[in-house]
């Protein structure tokens, strides 16, 4: 390198000053590495494993001021606020990857059956909602399908919590054994479409009977009824003079838990309600990310400021020397490059050292915290995690901070006037 000889000797000469400002960069980078690895560790060890159970990237959107139960009861009468136009708007929101409507039924339904494990045949009004198989396909038991079929039993998903409720309270009350999921899956019963006790029989000519079969349990299934394929329910609704099915709610999938907050806000601005849990956690994650980011920026600004001060001092100390170099043939740009190279090397060394220190502290912290953790239901194996992107990124930020911090001193150095070499 052309200026390498000068650069090496400059670095050697100022090693004390450069080492101390390098340590400042290292400190900032170390803290960023530590925080970053803890954030990554908590995300990978705690948040990510919880995601499938509490899908933070899936928002449930409902029309405002109407309870879920009521919607399921008579979604057809309401419809307000959530329609196909609203769905289209939801799909267009930034960060939304998919929208799954929860279709309501436009006709009364009752179900009968249950001799198998209830002991006697029951008949009860039932509410049905339709869901896209793409959303709940993972909940369907092996060997079963949740696709719309014109023949055979209608596939039914039941709320997982309904089974839990039955087992924890109902079973003992009616003196029946508890049920496992396996026992219920495959269970068939009869659906009477077009007639229920509460709503009677609006049109006796349009009452039909279909066999339904439980194919799985789902967290997205309707708690107070059954959930059938969206296409099946839309087809049945159309048979009851409702070509456009009522919508009870919609699931909105976003491209990460951090998106839940902003997307929730956008949805609420549009006049719809968002189920609270993922919204709160998503907002918390967003705030945590923003706070961490701002903190990192502050630390880097501090490091950059240290670099600026040190190099201002060095440039001021070397004013005459810089003028002499200009007289002997250094271009203005050469002097700026020398300063920027020096600062970048200090930043790189500081960054490297900072990453090593930060990662070491994080590793020790991980051992200590894991050792202290009580037996939790979701006991993480690690609370810190490292990724190449995190470590390289943190070191690189040190270089960037040093480079940016040295810009003004470099510009100052480039302004050295060669004529002053003769005057001093």
């Amino acid at each position, binding site marked *: 390198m*052309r*200026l390498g*000889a*000068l650069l090496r*000797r*400059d670095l*050697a*000469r100022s090693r004390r000053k450069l080492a101390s400002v390098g340590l400042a960069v290292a400190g900032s980078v170390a803290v960023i590495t530590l925080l970053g690895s803890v954030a990554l560790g908590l995300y990978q060890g705690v948040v990510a494993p919880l995601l499938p159970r509490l899908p933070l990237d899936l928002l449930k959107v409902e029309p405002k001021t109407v309870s879920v139960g009521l919607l399921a009861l008579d979604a057809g009468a309401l419809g307000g606020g959530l329609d196909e136009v609203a769905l289209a708007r939801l799909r267009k929101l930034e960060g939304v990857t998919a929208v799954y409507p929860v279709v309501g039924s436009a006709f009364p339904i009752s179900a009968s059956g249950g001799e198998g494990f209830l002991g006697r045949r029951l008949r009860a009004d039932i509410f049905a909602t339709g869901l896209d198989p793409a959303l709940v396909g993972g909940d369907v038991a092996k060997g079963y399908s949740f696709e719309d079929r014109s023949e055979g039993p209608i596939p039914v998903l039941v709320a997982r919590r309904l089974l839990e409720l039955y087992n924890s309270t109902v079973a003992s009350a009616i003196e029946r054994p508890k049920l496992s999921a396996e026992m219920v899956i495959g269970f068939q019963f009869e659906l009477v479409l077009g007639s229920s006790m509460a709503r009677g029989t609006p049109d006796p000519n349009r009452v039909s009977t279909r066999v339904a079969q439980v194919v799985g349990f789902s967290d997205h299934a309707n708690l107070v009824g059954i959930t059938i394929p969206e296409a099946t329910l839309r087809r049945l609704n159309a048979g009851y003079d409702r070509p456009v099915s009522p919508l009870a709610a919609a699931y909105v999938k976003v491209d990460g838990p951090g998106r839940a907050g902003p997307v929730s806000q956008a949805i609420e601005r549009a006049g719809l309600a968002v189920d609270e849990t993922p919204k709160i956690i998503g907002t918390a994650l967003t705030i945590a990310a923003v706070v961490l980011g701002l903190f990192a920026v502050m630390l880097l600004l501090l490091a950059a400021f240290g670099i600026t001060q040190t190099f201002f001092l060095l440039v001021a100390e070397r004013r*005459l*020397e810089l003028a*002499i*170099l*200009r*007289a*002997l*043939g*250094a*271009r*203005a*740009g*050469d002097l700026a490059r020398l300063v920027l190279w020096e600062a970048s090397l200090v930043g790189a060394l500081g960054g490297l050292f900072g990453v090593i220190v930060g990662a070491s502290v994080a590793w020790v912290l991980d051992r200590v915290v894991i050792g202290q953790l009580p037996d939790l239901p979701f006991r993480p194996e690690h609370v810190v995690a490292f990724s190449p992107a995190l470590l390289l990124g943190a070191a690189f930020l040190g270089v960037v901070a040093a480079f940016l911090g040295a810009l003004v001193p470099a510009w100052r150095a480039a302004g050295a006037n*060669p*004529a002053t*070499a*003769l*005057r*001093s």
Partner: protein
Amino acid sequence: MSEPILALTGIRREIQEGGRTRPILSGIDLVVSPGQLVALVGPSGCGKTTLLSVAGALDADYQGEARLLGQDLRQLNDDARTRLRNEQLGFVFQAFHLLEHLSVAENVAVPLWLRDPPIPEVQANLQVQARLDEVGLGDRGNESVRQLSGGERQRVAIARALVGGPKLLLADEPTGNLDQVTGAKIAELFEQIRKLDCAVLIATHDRSLAARADQVIELGVP
């Protein structure tokens, strides 16, 4: 006569002082031919250093015409003037202006380090050693310049000024900081330099140095 190394015609230079302009140089003409030793004399404050700055492409803020090796300095941008200083000019300063953190040989090598494209290290080392031999410091290259006497420092500075093979060496009071005996030895060196096919322009108060010149230019107070 061959083409002059340096041709200054009607050089004027003013400075701003407390809102008023003060003339420093008012119409200086000067020609330095190849191999010539030219002395610039006159009382303190008469503008010798100012004129060297113009001649040495260090100061672009003058009126009149300055031609160095046939090139009009006014037509060159800052980078081109810098290249010209590095490749065709050598500077010797009154206060020596060595870089204190470098060794003797490294100080001499600085102009070669700045050359673009770079000179291969082996060749650069040879050039440095040759110049150090010429100024009588051939075996002192690895010493720190901090230990040198004033005369030795000025020898290093002269070796540095000559290392790139300049056509013109500009010296501002090169013996001003030296005692008489040491100054006389430096003056002798300048005479040798002329034999290297390098013209020399010296601003000096030193009568014995001026006496060796082919041409003496007397600057008066403007």
